[in-house]
């Protein structure tokens, strides 16, 4: 698969069909991969596809000027399609390499599973249903499904829906919705006050690094509302009140655009469970408007159209 | 407010508001606590952090002269949140003020020299502090030439100063606008060509310039044509600032912090680092 990608990507650059290739390369940290963005053919040798390709790359074509050959997983492809719906990227400017995805390894989970930090692992390979690791020199085998991101359990479209070339054969959804929504259900089980206190505590940690916003492909505003100071909607410094307001508004802004790629939560350095907000909205938008994100690139964005029959039993 | 907390502002009272142009105002202000006034001194070219409480701080030079301490002055172009709030100020309102910060025009080096001031738009603000300083010690300096320009007659700031300098026989005053209007009988033309036309001799002369970046750029070229060396040209730089004391990290050009190492530089200094970042 990797070889095919390298070959095809090389052709695209050589023939001038794209200006950039956006894919995954080996990271500089154990097990991690890193976005590889290049216009040089010689760099393509570094392209990889493996169960550690966590990043959602669909944000890059918005920023890069020109045509782009891009590697996407299922969730990423829906982010990309959503960006097409918002007219932030044009389909004709993209050559999409789809990667059918059986799940991406959550390194934090993996560390928990093996009871050691990731830098003790020298080698990791997916073999069938398992991940085989070398930890401190000894071999360990753990079920692959135990170490993938929570979002992956709820992934209904592991195979990209929009692509020019599929690298590998289609993967059928392997759903465990309950597991994917575990934390959301837990929150819903609390009473209002407990829930509010939970979020209050979570957002007391926030340092406003904007990692969540800046990695999010659905956050494409030229100037974010928190960076506007006339009026100053939200203070630029971190207080739990403003942090929470910021994130709630952001959640609403990306509702209907969020493909539950989970990048916000992965990026957060202080461990705020942001997916519990975003994924909840994915469910709500689906429930309210029957809208699933990034399915139809020609459909209008969910909040720029309406149906006369939209639910309004909540209105007085 | 005793103690050494450099971040604590003095409370100042606005004594007078002057509307210079459509978007520029000048404010006369004074210490609310008069006992602080005697402890305060500054030099032409220095700046301060001014604040509207509840809105925040912004950076401006002190545009009055240290030779005239009845009140202090600063001038503000309306551009953002804090400057908009400053433009709302009325006589009697209070602001925060901390400073002065930064370096200043080296008066001792200007003594016995011919001085050429070239200012554009609100860029006259720091220059007028120095100009009045010079004029109040007129005998210490040789010829004084002032060239001031703005986009249109309506954009000319400090008209009361221009008038005073116009009348002063000891000042060669030139005013120009990029575009005139039906009432304008004065000079029309961009600053750099007008400067070349006036043609001040670089002999024993220092040029001091301040204005928008594009004006500075071409003024420097004109001065070079006239034979001025980089050591003979002084300017003040503007960068986004917050702390004013070299800590907050935004105003650097290379390793030079405009707030702490500037804002006054000779062109020779600038040539050394400007080619660097911009």
């Amino acid at each position, binding site marked *: 698969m990797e070889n095919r990608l390298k070959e095809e990507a090389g052709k695209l650059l050589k023939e001038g069909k794209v200006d950039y290739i956006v894919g995954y390369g080996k990271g*500089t*940290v154990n097990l991690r991969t*890193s*976005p590889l963005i290049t216009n040089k053919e010689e760099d393509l040798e570094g392209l990889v596809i493996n169960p550690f390709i966590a*990043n959602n790359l669909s944000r*890059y074509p918005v920023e*890069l000027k020109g045509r782009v050959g891009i590697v996407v997983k299922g969730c990423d492809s829906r982010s990309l399609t959503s960006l097409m719906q918002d007219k932030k990227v044009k389909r004709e400017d993209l050559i999409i390499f789809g990667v059918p995805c059986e799940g991406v390894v959550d390194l934090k989970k993996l560390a928990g599973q093996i009871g050691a*930090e990731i*830098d003790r692992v020298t080698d990791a390979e997916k073999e069938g249903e398992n991940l085989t690791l070398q930890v401190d020199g000894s071999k360990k085998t753990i079920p692959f499904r135990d170490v993938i991101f929570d979002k992956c359990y709820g992934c209904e479209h592991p195979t990209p829906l929009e692509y020019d070339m599929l690298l590998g054969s289609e993967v059928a959804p392997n759903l465990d919705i309950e597991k994917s929504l575990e934390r959301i259900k837990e929150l819903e089980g609390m009473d209002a006050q407990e829930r509010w206190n939970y979020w209050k505590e979570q957002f007391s*940690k926030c*340092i*406003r*690094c*904007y*990692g969540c916003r*800046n*990695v999010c492909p659905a956050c494409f505003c030229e100037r974010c509302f928190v*960076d506007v100071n006339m009026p*100053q909607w939200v*203070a630029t*410094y*971190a207080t739990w009140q403003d942090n929470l307001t910021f994130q709630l508004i952001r959640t609403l802004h990306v509702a209907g655009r969020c493909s539950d790629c989970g990048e916000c939560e992965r*990026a957060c*350095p*202080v*461990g*705020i*469970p942001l997916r519990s907000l975003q994924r909840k909205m994915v469910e709500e938008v689906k429930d309210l408007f029957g809208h699933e994100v990034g399915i139809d690139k020609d459909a209008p964005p969910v909040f720029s159209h309406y149906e006369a029959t939209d639910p309004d039993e909540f209105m007085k | 407010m005793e*103690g*050494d*907390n*450099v*971040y*604590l*502002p003095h*409370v100042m*009272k606005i004594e007078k508001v002057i509307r210079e142009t459509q978007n520029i105002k000048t404010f006369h202000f004074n210490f609310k606590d008069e006992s602080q006034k005697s402890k305060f001194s500054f030099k032409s070219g220095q700046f301060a952090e001014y604040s509207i*409480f*509840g*809105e*925040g701080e912004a950076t401006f030079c002190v545009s009055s002269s240290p030779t005239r301490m009845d009140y202090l002055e600063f001038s503000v172009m309306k*551009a953002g949140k804090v*400057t908009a709030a400053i433009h709302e100020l009325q006589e009697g309102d*209070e602001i925060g003020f901390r400073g002065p910060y930064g370096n200043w025009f080296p008066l001792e080096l200007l003594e016995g020299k011919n001085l050429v001031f070239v200012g554009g738009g609100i860029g006259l603000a720091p220059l007028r502090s120095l100009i009045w300083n010079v004029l109040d010690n007129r005998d210490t300096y040789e010829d004084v030439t002032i060239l001031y320009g703005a986009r249109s007659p309506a954009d000319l700031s400090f008209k009361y100063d221009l008038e005073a300098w116009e009348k002063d026989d000891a000042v060669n005053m030139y005013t120009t606008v990029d575009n005139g209007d039906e009432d304008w009988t004065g000079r029309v033309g961009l600053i750099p060509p007008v400067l070349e036309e006036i043609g001040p001799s670089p002999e024993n002369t220092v040029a001091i310039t301040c204005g*928008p*970046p594009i004006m500075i750029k071409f003024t420097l070229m004109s001065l070079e044509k006239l034979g001025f060396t980089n050591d003979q040209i002084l300017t003040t730089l503007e960068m*986004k600032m*917050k*702390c004013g004391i*070299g*800590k*907050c*990290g*935004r*105003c*650097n050009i*290379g*390793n030079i912090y405009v707030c702490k190492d500037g804002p006054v530089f000779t062109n020779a200094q600038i040539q050394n680092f400007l080619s*660097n*970042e911009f």
Partner: protein
Amino acid sequence: MGYKKIKKDQLKTLFNELSKDCSLFVPSGSKGYVGFDPWDGNSADFTEWYRNTTIPPKALFFPPVEAMLRFRKGEAGYEIEELLPNGRPQIVFGVRPCDARALKITDTLFSDTYRDPYYLTRRENATIVGLACNEPCDTCFCTSLDISPGESQDVDLLCSDIGDELLMEAVSDKGEDLLSKMSGLSEASGEEESKAKQLGDSAKEKITRQIDTSGLLDKMRSSFENREYWEDVSRKCMSCGICTYVCPTCHCFDICDENNKKDGKRVRNWDSCKFPLFTRMPMENPRHEKWRRIRQRYHHKFEYFQMNFETIACTGCGRCIRECPVNVDVTEIIGGIQAL
């Protein structure tokens, strides 16, 4: 100054005692990330799992947000009330050698020319208890910056983990003073001393990541105008502030007022050169483009800071590498400059 030692199972008692007269901060993972939290009397088992914090100890001295003053408008106009940190002594327990060095670096900045009373008051009231590293992370490269995982002259008191016990050595007068107040200590043997040294040496060997600082100043200078290089290395950066906020030496800040004209506070908060708004002026922005901001960050650390304060503003703690969501790696960037 001899070496003392304490059994790890005595740490809890020690902490309870120390926290009586001062604020004691220890590494804790209770919030979902590792940081220095006030001692809560519960578990002192961090020696078993702690490698380094996500948020560096700078946050205790230069907090993400701090009130500087309060302004109140009354009958007689505005009154200003200075809000300096209270003078309560602090002990920070478990600071790694890289972070201790980082504090020395930010000390120079905050005491240069104009004293920063907020930072310095906290620093003066604090005693830093270091903890030598036995297990550096694969992202660590402190040894490239003259720091040893096993030793530190930048702390007040240094602990080394020798198994069931922590070895303690006073480094400064403050440390000496603290050590003399601790109970439950016993004398350490020469054997234990050499064991600590040995562990330090083996930790040093485990660090393989590095940057080459020789001739770096000149290399940085000549790389400055290499726009292509900076565009290349910044392409994947997302312009978030993570690397600057988790960096133990990054110290850029903003000053803001609470949105209340009658009674509010002026606060100082972390800001980041990675944000385009950082240098935005009404008419122009010298660092509007991403590659200019990235260039500023690395040049500031490895060139300007060194020119102004004679030290590189990086201690090789590796946090920026660990926390970056897109794996921008400072060692790669500096390596690239050296190879230009």
